[in-house]
């Protein structure tokens, strides 16, 4: 079980990091999302894996470790805020700069088709 778990965490980390190293905003956002899954699972597992531990007092003899759970719970919510911020930043960058590159180069013909103009419904 433990080996399977860390294998999944490893795969998630690998996928997340690879996507974070891409040159456009959207893959980076996808990568960050995958990476935050990996991080959350990693943190969560620091309380060790319990299959049938109780989370509620009085329901069982053996309990899971509640502390990592509480930390990860807020991490999930904050992670959402972070991803939202990055996504909006990416959109704003595209709106202001006219492209969605993050590799620092000025692209030769970046999205010439879509000029940043005021949209209409």
């Amino acid at each position, binding site marked *: *079980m433990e080996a*399977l778990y860390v294998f999944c965490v490893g795969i998630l980390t690998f*996928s997340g990091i690879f*996507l*974070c190293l891409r040159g456009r905003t959207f893959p980076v956002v996808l990568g960050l999302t995958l990476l935050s899954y990996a991080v959350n699972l990693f943190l969560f597992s620091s309380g060790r894996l319990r299959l049938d531990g109780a*989370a509620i007092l009085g329901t069982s003899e053996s309990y899971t470790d509640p502390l990592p759970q509480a930390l*990860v719970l807020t991490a999930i919510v904050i992670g959402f805020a972070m991803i939202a911020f990055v996504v909006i930043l990416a959109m704003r960058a595209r709106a202001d700069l006219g492209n969605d590159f*993050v590799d620092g180069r000025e692209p030769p013909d970046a999205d010439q088709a879509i000029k940043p103009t005021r949209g209409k419904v």
Partner: protein
Amino acid sequence: MSLFWIPVLLLIGVFVPLITERFGRTACAFFTMLAPALALTQIAGLLPEVLSGEVLTESLAWIPAVGLTLSMRLDGLGMMFSLLILGIGLLIILYARYYLSEKDAMGRFYAYLILFMTAMLSIVLSNNLLQLWMAWEVTSISSFLLISYWSSKTDSRKGARMALTVTGAGGLALLAGLLIIADIVGSYDLATVLASGDVIREHAMYPVALILVLLGAFTKSAQFPFHFWLPHAMAAPTPVSAYLHSATMVKAGIFLLARMYPVLSGTELWFLTVSLTGLATLLLGAYVALFKHDLKGLLAYSTISHLGLITLLLGMDTKLAAVAAVFHIMNHAIFKASLFMAAGIIDHESGSRDMRKLNGLWRYMPYTATLAMVAAASMAGVPLLNGFLSKEMFFAETLHQVALGSLSWMIPVLATLGGIFSVAYSLRFIHDVFFNGEPIDIPKTPHEPPRYMKIPIEILVTMCLLVGIFPSFMIGSLLQAASSTVLDGQLPEYSLSVWHGFNLPLLMSAIAMAGGLLVYAYRGRLYSFQAQFRETDAKLVFEGVIQAIVRQATAFHEWMANGSLQRYVALLLLLTLVMTASPLMELNSAAGHLPHQPVNGIEITAAILLCISALATVILHRQRMVALITLSVVGLIVSITFARFSAPDLALTQLAVEVVTVILLMLALFFLPQKTKNESSPRRVVRDLGIAAVCGGVIATINYAIITRPFDSISEFFLANSKTGGGGTNVVNVILVDFRGFDTLGEITVLGIAALGIFKLIARMRLAMPSADEKGRAWSEDRHPLILAMISQSLLPLALLVSVYIFLRGHNMPGGGFIAGLVTSVALIQQYIAHGVDWIKPRIKVDYQVLIASGVLIAALTGAGSWLFDKPFLTSWFDYFDIPWIGKIELASAILFDLGVYLTVVGATLLILANLGKLTTRHRPTVEE
């Protein structure tokens, strides 16, 4: 009065000239002199105690928790320096009153000068290494301000920059050295450091500390090869040159050597480094001084030479040499300050400093000439003047040197050579300027300066004579006190009398006199010899070096920070890998002792699904919509994983967040390109795959190593106290709202700030609206399908009911503010999707920003509420009530806190998503909204 008052008094004095400037120049000078004069009387009042060998110390705890104290110390050495600093400082203030012209901002000048005086005095009175260093840095800065006083001149600016760079760099080295010393000793307290000389000298880090401290001292005191800044600092007004760059600041390095003498000296390394540096500086300065046509240039190199002499003395292996060094510090300050002032008068009254033009000034200003000639004679070491005494002691000490083994005879010979040049340039100063024909087209007709401008020189020259004739009477006890500080109380026998009989040092003096006369007589030949060498301008070399450094730094910076996120991430990951890999290699085996749990088929299936969808996201990431779908699969399985491993709260949260995230990304995708072109080169792909694979492997290994090892959790405490202390059985929720409530408060604040930031980003966003997808298909006309609208509308009350239920039971069962907030948000967002903004707008009139603010406020107020009951912030309260018909229920203050969390989460989520969604409609958010 406390010793602390002395620097404080001067610090107040910094503002005096700025305020009194308006009352006229004389009044300004007068009021400026008050603070130093008061400080001087204070110090002088302590003279008897210090001369009797007492060391006065005082300390004031500043931040005791980290061992920082302000500490003052007045001993013999500090007393001697304080008298020099304050005494000469007062004369300089008087002199500068007449030196500065009416165009110069006198208040600013005096303010800088007093600032410098404060800093310099703080160095010599400091009893703490860090405090000493701070003051040391302030002298560098105030010196910079003073050199660049005439900031419209290029020379001033360049000279100031050079001085600051060299002394500032030395200051950093000094800091490093002092930190090492403090680390060895275990204290910054100077008294402790001075008492642990043996510990320091035997420590392995001693050479490093010594070299660093010497770097600081040598740069400050313009020792070879750092001497080049001093001549360029002569661009400063002459009072500054007289005060900082001959009498006081450049002596700070010497002071440091003397201060640390009991601790750092006594080793071969000290004697060799210090004496050879001093000797080289002595010779170089004396030789170059002869060829300077600029009056101040000559004096600058002469200062370098004399600083070298003092350094050489401190580097000699005899106690008497240290006494001679202390003596010469005093003598040099006195005669050199007066010479600089004389040079300033000559410059002031004749308009030139060029000795090729200035000739025969004796006729025009006989009085000043006499004063200058006496001072110059003292510089040359003529008997019956103070310079002679210390020079004799110096010559005598060179004869006792053994540091160079069989080559030690070179020291007295080279010292005499230095003496010869010293006599020659002093002669040149006298003869070229005051005799030697008539002045050659100088701008003004020279005349005697104002009466009061001469007073400082008169006082100093009188001192030269008095010390030269009655040395023991004048300064015997002060010299004794100062030297005994340097030598840690072990004073050697010495005699301060003028006449020691016919001996070798006297012969050396005679040779120096005769040699100097000869060199000066045949100076023409020396000039033509020297003219063969091309003069290098230190300023050009320095600027070149600085520019080269800047170019290198810029190139490095551009390589590092080229604006590419890919490079930053890659560099960051590689660094992390290097730093995590080495401890991992020391770990024998990743597997720990905990028994592995069995795996069943469902778990394997889920794991496979997770891995496949994660990899699919990677492989298909260029087709963005598809990648988003596979990503959501990953999120779902993560949520299931939490449920599987006994974390229902996490599963619920993850599920709700997953929905919100996917909606968010889909909305974003509407505005972003639908596909990513394949832009990465194969090499880049391989590199990234490599980095990602190694990182994944390392993370998995660490994770494996963690979860297969047993550990002691602090959670026992939470489990034991959750019900009794927090009043809830859902430990996770109790941790969030009670045990770690302060963290949660911070977290919802961050969430709110992020949402507001996003709102501001959206508000000014101007994006093109694609009218069709990438294949040219128009978006569906059926914007709000009727079935979806009906179903979601009827679901809304149910969803809200569920969220209320989850919220209320959160304290005891899985649920709570976070989850309930997310569920509510999802329900409301569904209404936006199904009905559109037009439909929602009149129905939900909630300002989400207000929602966030009230959420954070409620949570914070709940926490603050416990103050009313004299409890610490965020102490929760709960009790059980019997309500008729309903039964026994529990009321806890934590539920109010959770309400704050709930409101913040709803507000933040909807502020983000609703506004992003509005971008697609005519209800674009604006900044004003």
